[in-house]
C-alpha cells in the first residue's frame, strides 16, 4: 500500500529515529515526506533534504490537524514529557481518523512490558510501575487500541535498545563515557540481556508496518536477533572505537560510588531544572564556577546511575517471531556490522575526541 501519491507524515522528525525515518523514506524509497518538528533548531538534520518541514506542537490538536492535511500515512515518533506523549498521541490518532489516513505506525517501546524478566511476546500484559516515561507510553498504546476499535489502521511497534548514528543514549553517550575513562558497572552487574536493535533495522520494520496489511491493528516487538549481554555490548563498543576491553573486576567500589553519587545526580537535575538561567549567567562569568560545574557534570556523566544497574542486570528478551511471520521482518544488521557503522560515524563526527585546541 505504501506507493501512494500522498505524503507520509513523520512526527518527531528532529529526533534520532524520526530523522532516520525521513532520510530512508525520502532517500531510498523516493516517498514524499512531511517532517514535523517541535522547534526549528531541531530541523538541522532533515533540513538537508528537500522535504517539507512543518513546526507542530503535538499537544495542540489544531496544529496536528493542519500537519495531517493531505497525508496518506503517519509514522508517529514524537514523544515528550508524559503529558506531551499522551496528548500528542491522542491528537495524532484523532486527526488521522478524521483524515482517514491509510496507516498510523506508532512507535512504542519495550518498556511497556514493565520491569519483568524472561522472553516477552506481544500478548504479555502491559505493566505500569510509576516511571513516568513507561506509564505514559502504556497510556499512548491504550489510546492506539481504542482508535483501532474505531476503525483506524494503527500498527504498534515496540522497539528495544535502538542504537546507531545519532543515538544519544546508547551510542554517543556510551562512547563519550568510554573515551573519558568513565566507569561502568562491573562484569557481574552487566549480565542482563542487551536487546540491541540497529536503527536501520527499526526503520525497515517501520516501512514494513506501513506496507503490509497484516500490520494494521496489531502490536509487534522489534529487536535485533542476537542475544548478548550488556557486558558484551560495552566491550564490543569499546573495541569498535579503538579502546581496550573494560576492566571487569572489583564491582563493589563502583557500586558504592554509584550509590554515593545518586543524591548529587538527583539534586543537580532539580536545581538545574529550576534555576537554569541564573546558573548559566554565573557560569558565563566565573571561571571558578565553570570548573566546579564541569567537574560535577563530568562525575555524573562518568558514573553509572542506579537505573543503569537495574537495566544492565535485567534478563529480558523480546523475540521477533511475530514480526518475522506477519511482516517478513529480518534483522539485516548483526551487532558487528551495526557497531562498525556506529564507530565510523562517531569518529567522523568527532565524538571520539577532537584535537585539543591550544591556547
Amino acid at each position: 500500500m505504501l506507493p501512494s501519491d500522498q505524503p507520509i507524515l513523520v512526527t518527531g522528525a528532529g529526533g534520532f529515529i524520526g530523522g532516520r525515518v525521513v532520510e530512508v523514506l525520502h532517500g531510498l524509497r523516493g516517498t514524499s515526506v512531511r517532517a514535523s518538528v517541535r522547534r526549528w533548531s531541531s530541523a538541522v538534520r532533515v533540513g538537508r533534504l528537500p522535504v517539507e518541514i512543518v513546526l507542530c506542537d503535538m499537544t495542540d490538536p489544531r496544529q496536528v490537524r493542519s500537519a495531517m492535511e493531505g497525508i496518506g500515512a503517519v509514522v508517529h515518533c514524537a514523544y515528550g514529557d508524559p503529558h506531551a506523549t499522551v496528548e500528542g498521541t491522542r491528537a495524532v490518532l484523532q486527526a488521522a481518523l478524521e483524515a482517514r489516513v491509510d496507516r498510523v505506525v506508532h512507535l512504542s517501546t519495550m518498556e511497556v512490558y514493565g520491569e519483568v524478566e524472561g522472553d516477552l511476546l506481544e500478548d504479555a500484559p502491559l505493566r505500569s510501575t510509576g516511571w513516568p516515561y513507561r506509564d505514559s507510553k502504556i497510556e499512548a498504546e491504550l489510546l492506539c487500541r481504542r482508535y483501532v476499535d474505531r476503525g483506524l489502521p494503527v500498527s504498534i511497534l515496540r522497539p528495544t535498545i535502538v542504537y546507531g548514528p545519532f543515538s544519544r543514549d546508547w551510542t554517543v553517550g556510551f562512547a563519550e563515557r568510554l573515551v573519558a575513562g568513565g566507569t561502568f558497572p562491573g562484569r557481574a552487574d552487566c549480565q542482563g540481556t542487551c536487546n540491541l536493535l540497529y536503527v536501520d533495522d527499526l526503520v525497515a520494520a517501520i516501512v514494513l508496518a506501513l506496507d503490509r496489511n497484516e500490520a494494521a491493528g496489531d502490536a509487534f516487538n522489534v529487536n535485533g536477533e542476537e542475544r548478548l549481554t550488556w557486558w558484551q555490548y560495552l566491550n564490543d563498543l569499546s573495541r569498535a572505537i579503538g579502546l581496550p576491553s573494560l576492566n571487569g573486576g572489583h564491582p563493589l567500589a563502583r557500586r558504592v560510588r554509584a550509590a554515593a553519587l545518586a543524591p548529587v545526580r538527583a539534586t543537580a537535575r532539580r536545581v538545574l531544572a529550576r534555576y537554569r538561567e541564573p546558573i548559566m549567567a554565573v557560569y558565563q562569568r566565573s571561571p571558578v564556577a565553570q570548573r566546579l560545574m564541569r567537574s560535577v557534570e563530568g562525575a555524573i556523566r562518568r558514573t553509572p546511575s542506579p537505573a543503569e544497574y537495574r537495566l544492565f542486570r535485567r534478563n529480558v528478551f523480546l523475540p521477533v517471531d511475530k514480526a518475522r511471520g506477519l511482516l517478513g521482518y529480518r534483522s539485516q544488521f548483526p551487532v558487528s556490522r551495526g557497531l562498525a557503522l556506529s564507530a565510523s560515524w562517531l569518529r567522523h563526527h568527532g565524538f571520539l575526541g577532537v584535537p585539543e585546541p591550544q591556547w
Partner: protein
Amino acid sequence: MTHAPPVPLRIAVVGCGAIARSFHLPALASIRGVADHLTVVDRDPGRVAAAEREFRASRAATDHRDVIHEADGAIVAVPQEFHAEVAMDFLRAGVPVLCEKPLATTLEHASALVAAADAGGTVLAVNNTRRFYPAVRAAREWIQSGRLGPIRRVEIHEGASFNWPLAGGSTFGRGGTGKGVLQDVGAHALDMVCWWLGERPRITRYLDDAMGGSEAVARVEFAGDGYAGVVHLSWLSRLPNAFRVEGQQGTVEGGILAWDAIRLTAAGGRSRRLRLRPEVRSFPQVKDHVIANFLGAVRGEGGSASPCRG
C-alpha cells in the same frame, strides 16, 4: 560605557525575532535618549505588539516603509533572505543601517547595498559580532602588526549543535533558503578571515552535505598570496571551536569563545599563553558595544567597527 547621547536618536528595529529580542532591543532599551524613541517593526502583528510592550517602544509598525522617514538609524533583523530589500529601502532614504549578518544572500545584492551606501555617503554596517570578541581582536592585532611574519596558513574549525531559537523555518528543507551553517556560522568565520588578513582570499574548494536542502556541514578552502587556509563548520559534529593563524615567524591560536587568552608560538620554539584584559568580558556585553558603536557612527562620531567592507 553607555553615555547619554547629546541628541535623542530615533532607531527603528525591523524584525522582532530572536536576535532583536535578545540582542538589539535590550541594548537599545538601556540607553537614555534612545529608549524613549524606539520603533519596532515586524510583519507579524502579534510579534510586534509583544516587542512594543516588552521594550516600551514609542512606535510600532508592520511595514518598515511606514517608518523610514521617522528614523535616524535602522537595525535590520528580518530573516536573511529579506535583508537586502529592507536595508536598501533605508539606504536610499539616507538612513544609516546596521544589518544582521549575512548582509545579503547573493553577491549582487550585497554589492548593490555597498554601492548605495557609498553613493549616499550613508553608514552601512554588518553585525559581525565577533569583531568584538577579545581573542578574535587580539589575533588581528598580532597578524596586522606583522610580528607573525608573512601569513602561511589560516584555519577555523567550528562545530556545535545548532540551538538558536529561530522564530521562522525559512532555513530548512523544501522551499527553504538552501543556506544553512555556511550563512549562519560561516558568515562570522569568513568575516574573521577577511578582517584578519585585510583582504578577500580566493576560494579553491568548497564541500557541503546539503542534499537538496540546507547544509549542516561545510568546508571552505581558500588561498591568497603565499597562504592557504580552511574554514570547517558543522551543526552536527564536534569540532575544536578554535582558530589558528600561522605566519613565518610565529603562530597565534585561540578559542572562538575563549575570552581571556590566546596562545602565541614563535617559529621553531617557545609557546606562551597571553592573558587578555578585555573590555568585553562575556557574551551578553557584546551587544552594548555593538550598539554603542553603531550609534556613534549614526551620530557621525567616527566609522563603524564593522562596516560592510575594509
